[in-house]
């Protein structure tokens, strides 16, 4: 067994175990921490498929950003389940049946022997192309320029970056617009509605500060 297979089996088992614990833990904080473990395992699996940049994004955005958001909300809400309280829904049997059914269906699609791996190198995942113009002497003596496409082997990050900014620029911009809209939506939805007195009167510290500034201004004028 090669080291790659060994890592795959170890990390894959860990990912499945951690994701099972995510959905069966009683405390949401524990669930969030096991979800973090699952994300890190998946990042390792990405590296095995020579997707280094995606693995880095997975760690930064999922493990760094989304998990912090989840943990913040869990701590903000601070749910404590009593030991005798049920954490599972009333129709948990149906849920398990649906999960098992979908698992069997997906497994039947992906069963061994369906997708044969062609013997391809992962060089295209690490290379990008550039154009060069070259002067070509024609048969009748005239000189024309010709564009030549040249493949260059670089790192995976550079290859993904070139692809993203050259061929997928519009989807990328749409994604940024989506993030802006999601941010505005989250702020608007999550904002606490102020009640009438809070809206009409400024907080005490602001009134104090305005009074102090007035005093300072008058002292300067008199000086």
């Amino acid at each position, binding site marked *: 067994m*090669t080291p790659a*297979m060994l890592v*795959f089996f170890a990390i894959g088992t860990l*990912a*499945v175990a951690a*994701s099972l614990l*995510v*959905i069966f833990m009683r405390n949401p904080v524990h*669930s*969030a921490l096991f*979800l973090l473990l*699952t994300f890190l395992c*998946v990042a390792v*699996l*990405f590296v095995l*498929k020579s*997707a280094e940049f*995606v693995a880095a994004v*997975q760690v930064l955005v999922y493990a760094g*950003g*989304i998990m912090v*958001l*989840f943990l913040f*909300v869990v701590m*903000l*809400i601070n*749910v404590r389940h009593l030991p005798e309280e*049920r*954490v*599972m*829904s009333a*129709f*948990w049997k149906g*849920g*398990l049946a649906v*999960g098992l059914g*979908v*698992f069997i269906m*997906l*497994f039947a*699609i*992906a*069963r061994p*022997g369906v*997708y044969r*791996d062609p013997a391809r190198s*992962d060089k*295209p*995942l690490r290379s990008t192309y550039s154009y060069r113009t070259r002067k070509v002497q024609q048969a009748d003596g005239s000189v024309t320029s010709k564009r030549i496409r040249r493949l260059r082997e670089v790192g995976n990050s550079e*290859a*993904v970056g070139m*692809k993203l900014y050259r061929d997928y620029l519009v989807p990328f911009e749409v*994604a940024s617009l*989506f993030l802006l809209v*999601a*941010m505005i*939506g*989250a702020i608007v*939805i*999550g904002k606490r509605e102020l009640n009438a007195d809070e809206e009409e009167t400024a907080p005490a510290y602001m009134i104090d500060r305005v009074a102090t500034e007035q005093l300072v201004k008058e002292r300067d004028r008199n000086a």
Partner: protein
Amino acid sequence: MPEAAPTTEAYLMLSATLFAIGLTGVIIRRNMITVLMAVELMLNAVNINLVAFSHRLASLEGHIFTILVITVAAGEAAVGLAIIIQLYRLRSTVNIDEQRELNG
């Protein structure tokens, strides 16, 4: 002959397992935050598929798509958690069985 590297099928089977676990979590949990976590699990299972096929077909499109899926997951988590916080302020509970306004 033993395989030198994990095959696409192995990745697909692992991804199917994670997806089924996530779907089960979405259905059986009562805590809304955990349900959202299970949704993230499902999105991650899809990302594994995309990366595995990207490697098999030796093309970078899967990586681009994975990055876009991660973007959508981030936005979805932000808005979903904002909704959960607002519901908690209104009801002081995050139990999904007690939100019955829409009679679903």
